[in-house]
């Protein structure tokens, strides 16, 4: 899945530099989440939880309400210590497949 940032109406008036900055931030979030998910430790790290939380907010402009809702449920599962291996695998797949472009 490719997310093209400048396509979103809210971002239309942003300059090229501003869009590039957003792109960097999205990629930073993506790679932080993938790195933390690769951690063998089954516990959810603070970095994973925090970055995933921020990423939900960022990506919610581009993804369907269903995906955002599923991600919020995963965040809730993290908070309730019920973040399963299936959740972890699904999140890894999602962030591995998503690409961002200006």
């Amino acid at each position: 899945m490719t997310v093209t940032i400048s396509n979103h109406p809210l971002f239309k008036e942003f300059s090229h530099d501003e869009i590039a900055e957003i792109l960097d931030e999205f990629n930073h979030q993506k790679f932080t989440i993938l790195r933390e998910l690769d951690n063998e430790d089954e516990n959810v790290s603070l970095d994973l939880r925090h970055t995933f939380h921020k990423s939900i907010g960022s990506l919610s402009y581009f993804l369907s309400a269903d995906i955002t809702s599923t991600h919020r449920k995963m965040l809730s599962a993290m908070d309730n210590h019920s973040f399963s291996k299936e959740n972890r695998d699904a999140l890894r797949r999602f962030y591995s497949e998503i690409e961002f472009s200006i």
Partner: protein
Amino acid sequence: MNKIKTVIIDDDKLTIKLISKLLENHKDIDLIQTYSDPTVAIEELNKHQPDLLFLDIEMPKITGVELIKKLNFKANFIFVSAYDSYAIEGFNLDAIDFIVKPIEEDRFNVAIEKVRHNISNDVRNESGEGFMFIKEKGQHHKVAISEIVAIKSDTDYLHIITEDNRRFVILHTLKEMQDKLYKYGIIKVHKSYLVDKSRVLNVDSTTNELDLGTMKVPFSRRMKRSMLEELNIKKKK
């Protein structure tokens, strides 16, 4: 007309950019500063006391909820978060609104309307220094703020109780009334009660009740500390 001095505090730069852009459509709002580090913001906020804050809840080092509690002035604020589970906590702190990301322009504009209503609806400006007109059953009653003993919230309505036991029912939120009357020494002691702090004769910690002379009202344990500080029984932190 004075512009509404506004500050955004969010560690997510995207949200800062978006809110900044959306605010450009509102000429009565003056965005004076943005902060991505909430710990840097606190001192500046206390110094400049802006009229309105847009505030993220979950930030590193300090949460938006903790930040609000560290302010030395009564701030008008809107929480912005990706996680709606925080909404109840936000409203318990008397947030004007709670916006869940993705921020939508129409929803954002509704929040701005609430801000305008909240900030411009000042009793002193509308009705004169120290009094208010209360419309009830087709009549406007002039009530001095100094006559008010307590205000009780009942869903969308408020009961204003005066020292001579008159009771007026008006359509208003407790939050709005609290903001208007705080400068007159009327403070919140319970999720449903405001009281004139100068009338408190006794604080009963066994029954969690305040004796106001003409009536007793409950106070909440959660607000006890701030209430005791307001009453000068406990030193402010």
